[in-house]
């Protein structure tokens, strides 16, 4: 049972859920009806008009109404919006037990101790039917959710089902109701509108509760005989199906669960019991210490129940609704119903993977709690509460998306929680001993490790690390080093969400989110009043989370805000850009698109990515008072400035951000004394004397102005001010200015004019203005004051200013990036960022020292604890289990045996190197060469191809041999381990079965070379082309292909290449023999008879044509020209050819005779380059098939330069398929 909300109050007798809002009404024995918000946990309202206990209460399913009935015989209908009792229905003659609205008609059904059930119309506010028949208190009555039936339970030990079909027919319109009102009295106690359909007898004591199944024709009842009975009905009869025994006292209330196939009952025995409705067996029992249960309520829509007891009520769920899931890259694995399912984020493809529960297994609280997925093994660990905490390990089959419904025999074990921690490793928590068992995929214990704190759950924390949770803290523990890597005091952590880069972690508690680094250094803490449900990190390091009713974000600095509201809770699984992927309570995957602008903007500000900030300001509408307030509060008034139109706000922001020019503009716009004054203060702070002066002028603040002039040395302006003061008749101001100016005459004049003659006299005489002094003395007559004795007077002259004219050195204010407006942001931004960063680093540096210090202390403390714990374990023999597990012998064992090392050990004989296996197995020359058996390879080649000249093959032999091993550096400073490289590797190859050696030459390389050879030929690089073609010819004996068809291709290639080699050799020879025009013509002519690609043939023909034409062999040239024209050559070639044809046609003769008869078919001797006409004898090369005049027999082939002309040979073997 998962308690969601609990109240303390007087005895709760009636309960009803609001169908839409998170509200519940509780009617109390004290007469009060309370309206609670169970989600927020607050009392919204109380309704206190009944006298005595209120036993029945019910919400209307669409109107803002509820009905209540109490021991004051009154049924009251209330509007909870207006907090008013709308009216009272009177009629019952004793306590009212239950009241209920009809789901569509404007009716209320009530059950009373007056032994009647009444149906009321709350629109006409009349009783429309009285159902009589029970002969004791009617404890409960309720409408059928769909049909025209009422079920009632009474202390007369019966349950009755009433047919109200006729009542419904009669009340089609309200008018009918009114008409019937007169009839009613006559019908009272003899009403025919509702008739008893069935009387269900079977309980031995009074029945307290009966209720319909929401969809099936079933009734469940609970009675003082401590039994719960299940009844079935059809059109004609109803009968008892089964009895559920178990309650130890009167059963108060019993109901079918709205969604699951279970029955829930509660009783005065202080327990709530859950029963399997199909198997009719008890599934679970929840007990309370002191409180008898009186009432149950089932939420009509969602998976919630409520129960009222002696001292309040509880709102609860029977089962968690959070689907267990695990995210891995683009995939989500989650449990739904009986199946493990798979969801691919990129394609939003959803598929069932494997069944994890057999059909029909009891499901309550057996469903997976957590799921851990290992991508390398493609395995899942599913933890559930079965057997007090256990896990199951499933390997997902390769062809995973099978529909098969065969439940795998999972590997199982008990343990508080189990998570994968590395490849082929998972950790299982043993709560009792606070140990973890590290297991492999075979479910074998590999290692045991005691944990540094008493742990009740473990979570993944990076490879080989665990995050251990206890009541009030979490630690990250490195299982290998047995070191605590970090520790943090937290409220009870429920979920742990790592950021994508594993640098940060979010620890979710019921009402708290803690963001910490991977070493558990606290970064920020957030408190939520609403329960925190789930969360995931977005790619920018913002944590997106959900509460029961909101999607929110949390920036790295702890700032948070709402992204949007939610109607129903969701569980975020992944955040990708603007899309939130989540699972809902029905286990459906959903993708929600959110507007991320706000938090991305705030993040950009936080990270000082001002260029982003600027572009966002330009491109999006994220304004609003909240944003301005945020910016201001976060110290970015200058950014806020760009959002604001209102001059006053602008002015304030400008002052805050120190942007004097904007402030001046705004102040001018507003033009009020207050603003000018503040502008002056800020300008003075910054040292902007010009603006200070301007501000003082605007406010006509002469005193400040004159002081400003004094200290800035603007004496001319100061004297102007003096004049102004004179004009304004401001004597004091005038005097001040005169004093500042050091203008004694003026001072005397002012004093005189003001009538202060003695003062004027003293001033004049002190400063030596004797004329004036005398004049004043005469005016004063006898009243001439005496001058102080013994003092040397001096004139106070204005000090010379440090800086004159212009501003003081200005205070550096946060300006720059935004100063120039939106356009020229980037450059200034960069500068600013740098400077800001410096500041940040300093601060951080200091912080880190602090943190380190703390960490060290804590770690030491933990270590001490851990050691202590281990000692305890030793004393208690806590390791006993370990021995039982058949763990490998400890360190000591091998050490002990080491002493006796030389006596028994016999060094094994050396095994066979892979290269030996190769040379034993293979009959391919290339493989023999790779194995290093060069002699065997040579023999093979000799036999197969008649090759005798191996010199051209030397480098290839060596390369094949070199390429057959890789080099593994294993143990430090020990000799390197050579490893034989095998060909044709695939995952499914069995180990220890040796494949053939990997060869450095393959057929595709030769094809590539062929292409390059063609290219070189086309571009006239004949030597290069010849080199390439020859290299093909030389490599092919050492090429291995797999299939027969490829063998044919290889043989074809030999022929193609041979033609080119022969042709190119002749052409190169022709170019050498410049002094022999006849031979030249002949070679050119033969060349045109090699089997060449068309473009190359054209080139051959063109050159032959030219050579013959030059030697005036016009007839032969004519022949080449004709042949050339037949090949459809490019225009330039064709033109020449046509000219030659024309010239030749005029004079079809040859000046020299050539050994060349194009009409007679011939082949060319590969060594002597003479035509061997059809019918003449020849010999051929066993490898490249070039032909030779018989005299060449026994020589090395002039074309391939490998084989012996005319030698016996069995033919090219280049594929294992030929050997088999």
């Amino acid at each position, binding site marked *: 049972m998962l308690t969601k909300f609990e109240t303390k109050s007087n005895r709760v007798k009636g309960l009803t859920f609001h169908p839409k809002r998170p509200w519940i009404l509780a009617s109390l024995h004290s007469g009060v009806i309370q309206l609670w918000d169970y989600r927020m946990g607050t009392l919204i309202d109380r309704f206190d008009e009944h006298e005595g206990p209120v036993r029945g209460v019910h919400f209307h399913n669409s109107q803002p109404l509820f009905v209540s009935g109490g021991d004051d015989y009154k049924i009251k209908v209330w509007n909870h919006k207006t907090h008013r009792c709308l009216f009272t229905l009177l009629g019952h003659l004793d306590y009212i037990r239950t009241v209920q609205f009809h789901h569509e008609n404007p009716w209320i059904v009530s059950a009373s101790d007056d032994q009647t059930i009444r149906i009321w119309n709350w629109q006409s506010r009349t009783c429309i039917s009285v159902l009589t028949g029970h002969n004791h208190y009617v404890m409960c009555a309720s409408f059928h959710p769909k049909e025209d039936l009422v079920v009632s339970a009474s202390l007369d030990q019966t349950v009755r089902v009433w047919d109200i079909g006729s009542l419904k027919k009669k009340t089609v319109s309200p008018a009918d109701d009114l008409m019937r009102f007169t009839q009613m009295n006559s019908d009272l106690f003899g009403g025919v509108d509702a008739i008893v359909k069935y009387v269900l007898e079977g309980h031995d004591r009074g029945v307290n509760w009966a209720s319909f199944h929401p969809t099936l024709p079933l009734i469940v009842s609970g009675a003082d005989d401590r039994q719960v009975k299940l009844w079935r009905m059809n059109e004609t009869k109803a009968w008892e199906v089964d009895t559920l025994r178990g309650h130890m006292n009167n059963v108060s209330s019993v109901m079918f669960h709205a969604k699951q196939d279970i029955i829930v009952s509660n009783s005065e025995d202080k327990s709530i019991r859950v029963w399997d409705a199909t198997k009719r067996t008890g599934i679970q029992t929840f007990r309370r210490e002191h409180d008898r249960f009186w009432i149950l309520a089932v939420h009509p829509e969602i998976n919630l129940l409520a129960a009222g007891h002696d001292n309040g009520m509880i709102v609860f769920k029977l089962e968690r609704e959070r689907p267990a899931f695990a995210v891995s890259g683009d995939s989500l694995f989650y449990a739904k119903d009986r199946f493990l399912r798979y969801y691919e984020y990129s394609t939003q493809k959803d598929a069932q993977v494997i069944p994890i529960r057999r059909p029909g297994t009891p499901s309550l609280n057996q469903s997976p709690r957590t799921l851990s997925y290992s991508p390398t093994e493609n395995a899942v660990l599913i933890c559930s509460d079965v057997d007090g905490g256990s896990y199951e390990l499933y390997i997902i089959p390769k062809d995973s998306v099978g529909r098969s419904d065969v439940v795998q025999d999972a590997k199982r074990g008990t343990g508080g929680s189990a998570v994968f921690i590395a490849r082929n490793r998972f950790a299982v928590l043993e709560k009792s001993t606070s140990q973890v068992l590290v297991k492999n995929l075979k479910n074998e214990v590999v290692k045991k490790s005691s944990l540094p704190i008493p742990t009740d759950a473990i979570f993944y924390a990076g490879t080989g690390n665990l995050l251990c949770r206890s009541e009030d803290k979490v630690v990250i523990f490195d299982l290998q080093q047995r070191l605590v890597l970090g520790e943090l005091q937290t409220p009870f952590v429920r979920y742990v969400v790592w950021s994508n880069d594993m640098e940060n972690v979010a620890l979710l508690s019921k009402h708290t989110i803690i963001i910490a680094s991977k070493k558990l250094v606290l970064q920020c803490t957030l408190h939520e009043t609403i329960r925190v449900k789930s969360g995931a990190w977005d790619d920018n390091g913002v944590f997106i989370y959900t509460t029961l009713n909101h999607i929110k974000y949390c920036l790295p600095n702890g700032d948070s805000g709402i992204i949007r509201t939610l109607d129903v809770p969701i569980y975020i699984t992944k955040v990708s850009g603007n899309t939130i992927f989540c699972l809902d309570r029905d286990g459906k995957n959903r993708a929600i698109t959110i507007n991320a602008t706000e938090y991305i903007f705030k993040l950009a500000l936080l990270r000082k990515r001002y260029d982003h900030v600027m572009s966002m300001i330009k491109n999006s509408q994220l304004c609003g008072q909240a944003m301005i307030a945020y910016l201001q509060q976060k110290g970015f008034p200058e950014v806020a400035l760009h959002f604001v139109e209102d001059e006053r706000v602008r002015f304030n922001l400008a002052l805050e951000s120190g942007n004097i020019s904007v402030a001046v503009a705004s102040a001018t716009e507003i033009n009020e004394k207050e603003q000018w004054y503040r502008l002056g203060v800020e300008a003075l702070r910054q040292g902007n004397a010009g603006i200070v002066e301007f501000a003082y002028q605007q406010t006509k603040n002469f005193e400040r102005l004159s002081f400003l002039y004094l200290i800035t040395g603007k004496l001319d302006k100061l004297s102007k001010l003096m004049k102004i003061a004179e004009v304004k008749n401001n004597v004091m101001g005038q005097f001040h200015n005169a004093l500042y100016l050091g203008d004694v005459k003026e001072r005397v004049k002012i004093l005189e004019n003001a009538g202060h003659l003695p003062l004027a006299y003293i001033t004049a005489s002190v400063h030596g203005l004797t004329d004036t002094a005398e004049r004043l003395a005469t005016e004063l007559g006898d009243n001439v004051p005496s001058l102080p004795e013994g003092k040397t007077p001096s004139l106070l002259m204005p000090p010379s200013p440090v800086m004159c004219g212009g501003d003081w050195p200005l205070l550096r204010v946060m300006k720059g990036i935004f100063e120039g407006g939106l356009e020229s942001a980037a450059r200034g931004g960069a500068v600013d960022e740098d400077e800001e960063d410096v500041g940040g680093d300093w601060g951080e540096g200091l912080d880190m020292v602090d943190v380190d210090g703390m960490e060290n202390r804590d770690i030491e403390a933990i*270590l001490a604890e851990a050691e202590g714990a281990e000692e305890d374990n030793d004393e208690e023999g806590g390791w006993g289990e370990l021995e039982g597990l058949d763990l490998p*012998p400890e360190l000591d064992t*091998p050490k002990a045996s080491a002493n006796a090392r030389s006596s028994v050990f016999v060094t094994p004989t050396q095994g066979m190197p892979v290269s030996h296996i190769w040379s034993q197995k293979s009959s391919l020359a290339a493989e023999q060469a790779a194995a*290093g058996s060069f002699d065997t390879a040579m023999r093979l080649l000799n036999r197969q191809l008649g090759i005798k000249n191996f010199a051209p093959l030397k480098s290839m032999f060596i390369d094949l041999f070199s390429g057959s091993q890789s080099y*593994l550096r294993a143990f430090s*400073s020990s000799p390197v381990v050579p490893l034989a490289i095998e060909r044709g590797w695939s995952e499914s190859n069995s180990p220890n079965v*040796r494949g053939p050696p990997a060869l450095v030459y393959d057929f595709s390389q030769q094809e590539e070379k062929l292409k390059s050879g063609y290219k070189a030929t086309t571009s006239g690089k004949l030597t290069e082309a010849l080199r390439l073609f020859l290299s093909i010819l030389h490599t092919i004996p050492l090429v291995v292909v797999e299939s027969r068809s490829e063998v044919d291709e290889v043989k074809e290639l030999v022929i193609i290449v041979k033609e080119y080699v022969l042709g190119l050799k002749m052409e190169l020879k022709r170019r050498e023999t410049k002094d022999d025009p006849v031979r030249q013509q002949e070679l050119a002519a033969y060349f045109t008879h090699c089997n060449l690609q068309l473009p190359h043939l054209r080139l051959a023909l063109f050159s032959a044509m030219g050579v013959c034409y030059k030697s005036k062999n016009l007839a032969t040239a004519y022949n080449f020209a004709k042949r050339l024209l037949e090949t459809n050559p490019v225009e330039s070639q064709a033109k020449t050819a046509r000219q030659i044809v024309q010239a030749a046609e005029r004079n079809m003769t040859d000046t020299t005779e050539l050994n060349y008869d194009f009409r007679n078919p011939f082949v060319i001797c590969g060594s002597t380059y003479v035509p061997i006409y059809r019918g003449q004898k020849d010999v051929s090369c066993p490898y490249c098939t070039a032909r030779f005049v018989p005299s060449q027999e026994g020589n090395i082939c002039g074309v391939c330069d490998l084989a012996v002309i005319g030698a016996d040979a069995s033919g090219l073997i280049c594929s294992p398929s030929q050997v088999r």
Partner: protein
Amino acid sequence: MAGMGSGPDHLFNLRNTFYLGAYQTAINNSEIPNLSPEDAVERDCLVFRSYIALGSYQLVISEIDEAAATPLQAVKLLAMYLSSPDNKESTISSVKEWLADSTIGNNAILRLIAGTIFMHEEDYNEALKHTHAGGTMDLHALNVQIFIKMHRSDYAEKQLRVMQQYDEDHTLTQLATAWLNLAVGGSKIQEAYLIFQDFSERYPMTCLVLNSKAVCCMQMGNFDEAESLLLEALNKDAKDPETLANLVVCSLHVGKSSSRYLSQLKLSHPEHVLVKRVSSAEDNFERALQSIA
């Protein structure tokens, strides 16, 4: 080899960095406070073995004086053996003499060094005589390697099983598993690759790990990936003999010229297996020509 579940393992990181071939890092991070005397000796051994792996033999020889503990003396012997091919004989006789001394002959490091030296001598019988009994992870790992070199993967597997029983997650166990996987080939190569992949994700990349990954790739026929891994390794250390040797092999397979890497290897490590192999192949070729003529 600290027992299970006891206090923190101070040398854990140092050992790992050493095993994974980050020798300079191991040297740089060897200042670990609060070490017990045994741990301190082990630390020093790791540091000097790192120097040896980096080729600084003379430094090791001069740093370790007569007063140093037996393990360190043994490490010094290795440095002497590797530094001067001419004096191998005398070094070997010292090793044999020490091994015969019952007071120190059982020392694990001494046996490890002896095993390493005899392995260089290709006297596997003598090597195993001292190492087969194991006792430390290092010794078992060395045994695995010896048996692999002897092409006796069945024996190597037995050694590995001992290591796995002791601590399956130990870096050396993982490494030895990967070595053996590579030696037996087939589907196991993938597992070896995953092990090295694991290391490269958990620890900074080293030439050793990059090379090992590249070897896996080559064994799986994936020469392009191998090449890029090797080039990455070459970036880290342009003289690493295995990187160069494997690059020679890899270049041959991808159809590129290997001669530059081979010349580099010949210059910097004339004694490398590949160099010797190539020159022996040349002789072999000539001999074969003779035999068939």
